[in-house]
């Protein structure tokens, strides 16, 4: 594994899968709030439900007494769901107070999450938000009080920026600000945007443009470009031996861990000039669309790290 989970994360996960008392796996029947986030196509999904102790007069004083989840996802997705429920129940929050629980609280509860897994904590926060929204509608609470009236329409109506994970411009823009995301890898780690085919990274209206818009055309980008030019010049000077070594190293360092995360792997069959022939085996490699995405991902990473002229041919 290219990362380590904290003891807390591992323990929450084990407790949950073994169904120990005090864990929150499951679904509340006729819940007072229900929220979902993610989809099976995106690799993880969470269905979050809670029950409140209803205040006889003022629904905004309802208190959450029980929270449960059903999660499709990795170790950290399950642990993050568990964390979310514990935080909410222990806090005895009203739903509106619960909204203050953010992904970083979940990360803190888990005693840290690897960068690549931050999106698991975001998923928890998103599902919570959706559930509170659902509660507000059911209880006739003015949703403006929640400050989250953007929820639905921004997801459904905005321009799609990341097609792989169906993420829209208003959503990504909001998340950049909310979570203080400053680079494309940070965006990907937090909300997955740009994490599959990567074609939305540097296109007009793509992730870099949204970052520039949020934070101003950063010096980070200029230096990244300078670095790229330097690398291109470097690539021209590489001997075939050095070139092949660099391809190998990039695969070991960046690509293989990503593929192994999905139970996949890859093998270089041959390298001819800048043509890299690969065998890719991913959890989804039998699906043609996924195979294509995988190929583009490998090609993108090799282009960025070794040479812009590289083409990957799938064998």
């Amino acid at each position: 594994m290219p990362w380590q989970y904290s003891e807390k994360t591992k323990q929450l996960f084990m407790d949950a899968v073994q169904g120990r008392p005090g864990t929150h796996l499951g679904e509340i029947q006729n819940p007072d709030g229900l929220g979902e986030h993610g989809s099976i196509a995106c690799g993880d999904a969470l269905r979050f439900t809670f029950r409140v102790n209803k205040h006889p007069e003022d629904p905004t004083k309802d208190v959450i007494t029980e929270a449960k989840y059903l999660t499709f996802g990795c170790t950290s997705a399950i642990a993050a769901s568990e964390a979310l429920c514990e935080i909410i129940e222990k806090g005895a929050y009203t739903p509106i107070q619960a909204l203050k629980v953010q992904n970083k609280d979940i990360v803190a509860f888990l005693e840290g999450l690897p960068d690549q897994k931050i999106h698991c904590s975001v998923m928890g926060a998103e599902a919570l938000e959706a559930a509170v929204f659902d509660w507000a509608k059911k209880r006739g609470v003015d949703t403006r009080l929640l400050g989250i009236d953007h929820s639905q329409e921004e997801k459904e109506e905005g321009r799609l920026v990341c097609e792989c994970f169906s993420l829209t411009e208003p959503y990504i823009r909001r998340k950049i600000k909310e979570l203080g995301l400053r680079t494309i890898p940070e965006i990907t780690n937090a909300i997955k945007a740009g994490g599959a085919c990567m074609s939305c990274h540097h296109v007009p209206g793509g992730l870099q443009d949204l970052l520039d818009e949020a934070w101003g055309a950063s010096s980070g980008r200029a230096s990244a470009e300078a670095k790229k030019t330097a690398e291109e010049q470097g690539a021209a000077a590489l001997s075939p031996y050095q070139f092949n070594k660099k391809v190998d190293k990039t695969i070991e360092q960046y690509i293989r861990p990503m593929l192994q995360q999905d139970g996949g792997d890859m093998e270089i069959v041959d390298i001819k000039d800048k043509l890299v022939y690969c065998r890719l085996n991913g959890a989804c490699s039998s699906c043609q669309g996924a195979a294509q995405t995988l190929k583009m991902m490998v090609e993108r990473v090799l282009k960025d790290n070794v040479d812009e002229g590289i083409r990957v041919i799938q064998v």
Partner: protein
Amino acid sequence: MSVSTIYTDNNATTPVAPEVYRAMIPYLTEDYFNPSSMYESAQHAAQTISRSRRLVADYFGGVDPSQIIFTSCATESNNAAIYGVAKARPDRRHIITTTVEHPAVLEVCKDLQRGGYQVDFIKVDKHGKLDIPEFVRALRPDTLLVTVMHANNETGVIFPVEQLARITKETDPTIVFHSDATQTVSKLPIDLKGDFKDVDLLSFSGHKLHAPKGIGVLYLKKGTPCRAFMIGGHQEGGRRAGTENVAFIAGLAKALELASENHDQIESRIAKLRDRLESGILENIPEVRVNGAGAPRLSNTTNISCHYVEGEGILYQLSAEGICASSGSACTSGSLEPSHVLKAMEVPFTAAHGSIRFSLSRYSTESEIDRILEVFPRIIANLRKLSPYWDTQTNRPRSGASAGIM
């Protein structure tokens, strides 16, 4: 001999379908005209050719009919493709093919090799699967042509031609890709605008799909460098001279039409019969193996090796029972060498000589399979009684037999 014939050698040739025969008759009788002539009756023959050409083009996913060239057989198509490409691009002199091609490709490649071309013959593994990494490594900047069969005539093993063509074109779009699809047309879907779009040249013949012997096709994608093989006439757009075989062309088009009707149903019925035959033999005869069983195979073919007996002896006895089958490739018979395909698959020599190919068709029946299953174990047992490597007492090979010790 009074026994009726059981024909299970359809990879060698097939009976002409009655519908095909009927479609041909008019052009052998009243419509005998030369389609190049000016008078109206001759124009009818010309129209028949263009209609047939369109039917063939439609069969392959609706390609442009002008890319379909009628030839006399698949061997001609293969020769025309390989020599034609070599002639058109004299600057490139490297060819990639496989060790298990039909001689109509293998011998042409070897002929070019004698003329100074470099040829890589890609190996197969023991299941008959192509070594794809070896194929990738063989691609070179001066590669002229890749020629890989779609399915093997002896074992029925299918090669991933669409994938190989894609890899070839992604490497260098000017490399020409040819495939001998003689055993697969009518059996496997071939969409030359879809999965097979990277294939430039494709050969096949009519007599493997219930059209008569003497008609073949070469698909030649527009823009492919390929000089005419037969010259001396304007026919087929100048790419294959010689007066068109109108009746056979009409017959071939009819045969492809028939192949499309109820295709999946017929194929699955054939597959069931083949599986029954195969499992029946495996259950009732010790020391047999199915060659190519570990690879994707055509559903009509089974190639079975019976250890410690000789194929010819099997064929002879089968023939006495009215059963037609092959041992190795019919095209290599006359040679004393066991089949080059089985050798390439490293089938042990104790088994290669005892290989029998049964290949079925839409006309094969359940009772025919029953009959084969009834006589085949006895035939093998008879031969093994005679074999110095077999111990009839235990019905097992003698010790040391696998090393060739009697």
